[in-house]
């Protein structure tokens, strides 16, 4: 084929230049905006809203009634009731499956919709796409499930003990507990989010590894102390403001102090995101036939 010397070639592309942080930041913002919009307004978001409402609906329905039995008339019991409600329903179920849905769909959803090339055909480092999408997933999940945590806690106390609750939140430990529970929810989103993002990149059907992790997290209370530490839920439990007994069969392990639990979760999350970045860097898109 004949060659031509029309000089439209980029000049010195190999030349070493400083890292373009401001460009990456603009690109992350653009990706973040698109993804947040998709997470909140896309057709897949309906399931998320329903999931976020799961703990709220029964509490709203129960709000006008005080259940029979003396324990329900004791304000202090409600600390334990919310701790169990939070650990069992909000953290292990709503946040877990909500994060699975949001983060697995960040890439897997685009692959299914055949729209990942919107990003792959842009001059964006693929690692930047991972960061933009992850941050969007994080903001979505923390906003939704953080709100669920706050509303659920307020609904547990306020309708039944209004004056005690006011004192509990404003003069007692209530506000601190509320912040701690919300922070634990945020940390859960950080940890589970990274795991599910990477699962969505590696597995064609990410439901199976998600269920395996779900089982692992639920059976965590039966595991020896060393294995307990290979989980997200162990660290989250360690941070909970009200310790909850895990039952007569539970293997007791020392809770990990917050100064270890929080950085550990963040470091593991960072490592998982690096794996995701490596994976996406080598990812191929193959649509249809020739």
């Amino acid at each position: 084929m004949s060659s031509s010397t029309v000089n439209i070639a980029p000049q010195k592309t190999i030349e070493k230049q400083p890292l373009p942080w401001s460009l990456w930041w603009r690109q992350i913002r653009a990706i973040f905006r698109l993804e947040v919009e998709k997470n909140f307004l896309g057709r897949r978001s309906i399931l998320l809203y329903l999931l976020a409402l799961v703990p709220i609906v029964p509490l709203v329905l129960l709000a006008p009634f005080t259940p029979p039995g003396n324990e329900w008339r004791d304000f202090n019991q409600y600390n334990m009731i919310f701790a169990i409600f939070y650990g069992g329903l909000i953290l292990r179920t709503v946040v877990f499956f909500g994060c699975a849905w949001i983060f697995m769909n960040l890439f897997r959803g685009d692959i299914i919709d055949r729209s990942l090339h919107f990003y792959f055909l842009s001059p964006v480092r693929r690692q930047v796409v991972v960061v933009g999408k992850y941050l969007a997933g994080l903001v979505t999940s923390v906003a939704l499930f953080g709100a669920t945590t706050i509303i659920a806690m307020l609904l547990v106390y306020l309708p039944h003990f209004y004056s005690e609750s006011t004192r509990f939140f404003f003069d007692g430990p209530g506000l601190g507990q509320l912040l701690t529970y919300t922070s634990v929810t945020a940390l859960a989103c950080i940890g589970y989010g990274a795991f599910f993002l990477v699962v969505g990149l590696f597995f064609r059907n990410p439901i199976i590894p998600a269920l395996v992790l779900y089982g692992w997290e639920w059976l965590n209370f039966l595991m020896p102390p060393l294995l307990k530490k290979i989980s997200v839920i162990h660290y989250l439990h360690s941070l909970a403001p009200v310790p909850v007994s895990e039952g007569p069969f539970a293997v007791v392990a020392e809770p990990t102090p917050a100064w270890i639990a929080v950085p550990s979760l963040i470091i593991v999350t960072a490592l998982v995101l690096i794996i995701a970045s490596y994976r996406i860097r080598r990812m191929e898109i193959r649509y249809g036939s020739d």
Partner: protein
Amino acid sequence: MSETNSKHRPIGQDEIRNSKSEIRNSLIVFDDVSKFYGEILGVNRVNLQIAPGITSLVGPNGAGKSTLMNLMTGLLRPTRGRITILGIPTDQPEQLFRYLGYCTQFDSFPRGLTGREFINSFLLVHGYEKKKAAELTTIALERVSLMEAADRKVAAYSKGMRQRIRLAQAIAHQPAVMILDEPLNGLDPMVRAETIALFRKLAADGLHLIISSHILHEVDMMSDRVILLNNGYVVAEGDVHGVRDEMQEHPMQILIRCDNPSKLAARVFDKDHVVEARLHDDRMGLFVRTRDADRFYLLLNEVVAEGEINIESIAPVDDDLSAVYQYLIGSEG
């Protein structure tokens, strides 16, 4: 003295190297590229140097056209070999897509966006500032005649409008290389003609346009050169007439309209390069098959000069892409 020296000094190795590298940096280069999907062959041992202009990829389904395009854009990685686009390796998307636009066959529209928002958001992802992105968006939409529908949701677009918005996406950042997978699909005849004119203009401006299409007469009309693919192999490449000329095993067919085809037949038949001479059904023309079209045209010049036969027209019958395709690949495009 020193001036003379500088004018006539021998060209150094460095200059030769730089000049070669400059030429290579203006080309799309495939160096012994193969792609296998497991055991299945995508493309095999492709060596190409594609210059600016319109290059069409032609071949039946499964020939390797999309594989070649996806390799060029880095969406696929070659199993073997190396591809560079204007000197940039295809595994560096952050560099590559500053100079390359790809119009795929598939939609990649984030939901709920209007045409304008779609192009604008694509440019923001590129990293453009808001003002510049808005400006480039308007230019791209104008170029594909989509300004009127710019503020309608992409989801409500017709097939032709979707095709145009994809085209706008590919040209929005004003790339030097455009790869267009079936870009004329779904366009009405008017827009088709406008789009082909746009391609011609972009090619005249020195851009590379790599186009895959099934519509051979359109490819023939707009392409500077073609790459014919079959079963993952490059069967032929070059400008259509050049490729046709090299197909010695298929003599060129020429139809000569004249007032005395029988006499013309007798005149040309004894030439060694003429394989066949057959009268047209209406007996007002002669089909000739020749192995050397240039010599045959010279012969016709002599016939005209002799003045015994009045020649009205001369038209090659199979000097087009359809014929090349049929001879090399064996079926109609």
